[in-house]
């Protein structure tokens, strides 16, 4: 950094080496394990050398488990939630930043508060909502006595029913109820020169044109980093898809992977599990390795 303090550089190198090892050793062991057969693993345990069963294990993942289908689900969920988050966040941040509205502050606070309580804390009651999206409406109808009225008029009380459990849609929407993206876009918009806005107004652009012609193209990198962030969240989440889906064909790969661990009857087939874990992690890890720039930008921006 400043002067070439050898000792400091050596220590720094050692620290990084240890850090890289800390990250890589588990991954490496997962790889070696995945390359052995189950009986071999039972006899030898964890080994540092590679075997020749990797393809076999991967093939087993494809033939014996639902993970391939589930990876498709994960992809749908990850892409879906990332895309939807991008759109919703962009729109709401735009509204909050570029309009003179008195409620902008409160609404933004309302949205941002979602960062504080992750889905994992509220999953039980979220599950109830997901099992009937209209339940709050029904409750309101009941509470206000409107339902009696409806019952009088239509002969039956209004009890709308729409469950999104065990659907990909149901896996996506609760993730969307999150303020991170709005925050990211808002931060980004605030860094844009105000003169850009003024120039566009001078050029005659109204709110929609400004949004589409100027803001949207300029937000590309923010879109990219938010997309990656939410994609990773969507891909790696566990608790919600665990409870919100029932059929293996609806579950995400992460849930499918966890399900490969037998309840209690045998030593888990670690080679198979590791092959699965590797397979399931390839998509996001490749994404990170190639788009790390955007991810870091996303992670950083989100904090400032």
């Amino acid at each position: 950094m400043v002067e070439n303090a050898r000792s400091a550089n050596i220590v720094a190198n050692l620290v990084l080496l240890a850090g890289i090892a800390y990250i890589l050793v588990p991954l490496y062991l997962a790889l070696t394990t995945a390359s052995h057969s189950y009986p071999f693993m039972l006899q030898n345990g964890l080994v540092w050398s590679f075997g020749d069963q990797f393809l076999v294990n991967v093939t087993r993942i494809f033939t014996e488990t639902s993970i391939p289908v589930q990876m498709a689900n994960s992809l749908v969920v990850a892409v879906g939630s990332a895309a939807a988050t991008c759109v919703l966040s962009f729109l709401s941040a735009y509204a909050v930043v570029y309009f003179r509205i008195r409620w902008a502050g409160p609404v933004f606070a309302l949205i941002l508060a979602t960062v504080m309580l992750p889905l994992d804390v509220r999953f039980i009651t979220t599950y109830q909502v997901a099992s009937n999206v209209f339940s709050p409406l029904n409750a309101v109808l009941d509470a206000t006595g409107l339902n009696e009225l409806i019952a009088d008029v239509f002969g039956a009380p209004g009890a709308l029913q729409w469950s999104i459990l065990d659907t990909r849609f149901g896996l996506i929407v609760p993730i969307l109820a999150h303020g991170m993206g709005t925050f990211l876009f808002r931060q980004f918009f605030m860094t844009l020169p105000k003169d850009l806005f003024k120039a566009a107004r001078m050029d005659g652009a109204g709110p929609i044109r400004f949004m589409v012609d100027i803001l949207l193209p300029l937000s590309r990198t923010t879109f990219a980093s938010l997309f990656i962030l939410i994609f990773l969240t969507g891909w790696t989440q566990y608790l919600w898809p665990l409870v919100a889906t029932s059929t293996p064909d609806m579950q995400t790969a992460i849930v499918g992977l966890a399900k490969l661990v037998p309840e209690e009857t045998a030593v888990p087939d670690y080679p198979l599990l590791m092959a699965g874990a590797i397979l399931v992690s390839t998509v996001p890890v490749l994404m990170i390795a190639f788009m790390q720039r955007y991810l870091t930008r996303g992670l950083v921006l989100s904090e400032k």
Partner: protein
Amino acid sequence: MNAINPAIHVAAASIRLGGVTKSYGRLTVIPRLDVEFRAGEFTVVLGPSGCGKSTLMQMIAGLERVGGGRIVIGEREVQDLEPKERGCAMVFQNYALYPHMTVFDNIAYSLRIAGVTKGERRTRVELVARMLGLTDYLGRKPSQLSGGQRQRVAIGRAIVREPAVLLFDEPLSNLDAQLRHDTRVELAELHRRIGATTVFVTHDQVEAMTLADRILILNKGEIEQYDTPKAIYHNPASVFVAKFIGSPPMNILAVSGDGSVLRLSDGRAIAKCGLKGDFQLGIRPEDVAVDHTGAASALKAHVRYREDLGSHSILAADLAGATVRIITPFGSEAPERSELLLSFPLQRLHLFDAMTGKAIPGAFGAATKDQK
């Protein structure tokens, strides 16, 4: 750089502000402004930071609502119109180009919004580009342009709509000295050719002096002086203006008049004058003469330091407790920390009221001291 061709010439319109006021919350930025920018003139607005220059521009442009009063452009009252309906164009300090659009698209954007056909758009953008020497850069993004080129794109974007009024908010402050100089010359040329009524905000005196038909000097939202550069330089209406223009600024000395002469605080007589009372006496550094003849009227001063700038030197001398700066022409030199005899030519003196700082015209005889 000299790529300007006569091509666009607009029908300039005057801008009249009548009783315009503006406050932000409790902060009054513009108490009340009445001013007319004449059609086709180049007006430079000058004033310290925060005095309301940008606010003024934005009210004219329609980016900021007026607190009260009327703005008339040409014959139309515009204060309630949208920016795009006012026939103004604006060039921003950092250009505010659309970074994701090519030069062509940047210039064409307002036409696109206005629904101008593609072919027509192309024609007009190309015309402007030729005029500004941007033809070769139409396909580039702003990030691939130099500061000066960006500047010209910003101007192109403004003039492509053939606005009756061109507004510039410190458009040169981001350029380096050389480029600034060149662009300044270009702007003057451009204005001559297009003829749009131009209002130009700057901090830079050289720009103000060289570009303006008239200079409007603002101080806390109020007009200090509105006149030609020459008049502003040579007949400042107030101490504020006198000290604001000129580098180094005008020397101001506290004097008192006894009805026949003005005296410095140490009692020495500095100039003949029939007025009585306390005044501020101003003289520009280049007007103070170093007396080599030893005339009786010359005043002795102690040289504090000297800065040699090659082309000329600046002497700082103590005179009755105040520092007087003197520009000595190239070649003449006074050793540092020496004594000097200074003379103050009567026709170069300015007298200001000690309290209000307002100029007292004709204090030394002639009503104006305009040089030729």
